[in-house]
């Protein structure tokens, strides 16, 4: 190599080094952290920001890609935590939040170079935190509102009952007034009939009052209607307390009544209820004609299944030797399903 050629090469080297130095300086000005690694895991270049982050994350200088990757995925929890609900960004002990991304680029000779970039997400994170707090407040407000609405529903019910009681008692008051007139003998023509009518109503009310001790229930209604349709419903076992259980039983009972009347042409539907610690089970069977073939879910039975699943219950259909429907209802807290 001649003197002139050597000078040219040295010039090229100086020029290349100067270029690298300029690139490094420029990278150091970047607010984001950036680092490049060779295919054999070694650090090629990193900027100040990345070096500072790595010190905070690992407590050592940046050297190997594998170490950095491991620290990003499984950081020492005293130094940083992975925020899974914020795109796996890292929240450092000083409260700052950074997201690390990894990509592979190639140099001009086609060698793979791994690039790691760390983005400052503090502003976005604070907005996210603010949004989370507001959402929490909204959720609290919604829960409070729901409680108020349920309380209002109870108070509406009480007001309705009071108004209805007043109306029934007004009728009784009219009856007493008419009776007084009647006793005094100053009754007008036609008042006697009115009096008797009121008396019938009043005694009817009193009889009902004495005879009915429980609140009316949907199950009682369905059983009464079935009897009108010529189907006797026999319940074996006691009905567990709870509106979810009662709703499930009522749904299944209606479906079985319809099927017994329409397909099996039965006259008695037997419901056997057994109660476990966590589950109540009800088995429905009728005295009608057994199905010719396996019962395929469809129509009413499908809707029943859907509705039962929504409340956490399950359903089983047995076609042979006779039709049986079994539902299993978990005994959960009532408020869970409302």
């Amino acid at each position, binding site marked *: 190599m001649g003197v002139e050629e050597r000078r040219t090469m040295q010039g090229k080297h100086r020029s290349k080094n100067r270029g690298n130095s300029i690139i490094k300086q420029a990278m150091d000005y970047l607010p984001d952290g950036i680092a490049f690694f060779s295919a054999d895991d070694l650090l090629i270049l990193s900027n100040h920001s990345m070096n500072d982050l790595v010190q905070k994350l690992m407590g050592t200088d940046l050297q190997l890609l594998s170490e950095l990757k491991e620290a990003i995925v499984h950081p020492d929890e005293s130094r940083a935590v992975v925020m899974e609900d914020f795109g796996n960004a890292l929240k450092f002990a000083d409260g700052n939040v950074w997201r690390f991304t990894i990509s592979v680029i190639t140099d001009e000779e086609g060698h793979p170079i791994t690039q790691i970039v760390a983005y400052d997400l503090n502003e976005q994170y604070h907005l996210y935190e603010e949004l989370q707090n*507001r*959402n929490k407040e*909204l959720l609290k*407000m*919604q829960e*409070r*509102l*729901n409680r*108020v*609405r*349920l309380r*209002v*529903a109870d108070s*509406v*019910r009480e*007001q*309705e*009952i009071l*108004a*209805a*009681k007043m*109306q*029934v008692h007004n*009728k009784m008051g009219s009856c007493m007034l008419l009776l007084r007139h009647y006793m005094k003998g100053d009754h007008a023509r036609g008042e006697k009939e009115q009096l008797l*009518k009121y008396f*019938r*109503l009043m005694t*009817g*009310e009193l009889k*009902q009052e004495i005879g*009915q001790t429980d*609140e*009316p*229930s*949907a199950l009682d*209604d*369905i059983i*009464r*209607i*079935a009897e*009108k*349709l010529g189907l006797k419903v026999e319940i074996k076992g006691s009905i567990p307390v709870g*509106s979810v259980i*009662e*709703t499930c039983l*009522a*749904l299944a009972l*209606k479906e079985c*009544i*319809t099927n017994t009347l329409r397909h099996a042409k039965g006259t008695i539907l037997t419901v056997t209820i057994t109660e476990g610690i966590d589950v109540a089970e009800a088995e429905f069977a009728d005295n009608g004609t057994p199905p010719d073939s396996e019962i395929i879910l469809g129509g009413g039975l499908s809707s029943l299944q859907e*509705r039962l699943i929504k409340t956490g219950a399950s359903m089983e259909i047995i076609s042979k030797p006779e039709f049986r429907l079994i539902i299993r209802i978990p005994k959960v807290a009532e408020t869970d399903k*409302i």
Partner: protein
Amino acid sequence: MINVLIVDDERMIQKAYQAFIAANEDRFRVAETIVSSADALFACRANDVDMILMDIYTAGFENGMSAAAKIKKEFPSIKIIITTSYNDIRQIELAKEYGLDGFWFKDQDDMELIEVMDMVAEGEKVFPKEVPDVILGQARFSELTPAEVNVLYALLEVTGNRQIAQRLNIEESTVKTHMKRICEKVGVNTKTELAILAANSKLALPKLNDSL
């Protein structure tokens, strides 16, 4: 004779209705009384029903309004009167939309229920001429503009301004403006107070099931 199906989950109210009907036994008789609107269609299939007195909020959180709509489709000739203690004016529009025949506010209707039943039996559609003017803090409900009423009802469903805006298809800033004006009219400082006040005024029904 008009055969009436009573759908209400309170025994005293059932009794009051039964008493009205018994007092007018020349025109009406009780076909059946049930507690849940989810069983109303079943009751209509089993009984000869000409008219239904349907509460909206029935046993098991079942929605009487949607049950009524379904019954009307299957039995168009059955006359259905909605009865409620809630001041939820949207329900009146829903009842009209579903082709129902009458609407009666249990607490504060100008007409007696039996009058409404007679008119409906004659083929008239009977809806309240005026809705109950609920007192809402320092204001009356009627003092709110239609847009403010919509925002108030949306607030009872979704609470967040952004969700309200999405639901009503308006800008979030518009929601905030309406909310501010409603709060000023009503005399409350926050939308939480507003929502609780509105809920306490029985302006909206709780969430109900449509299981019929």
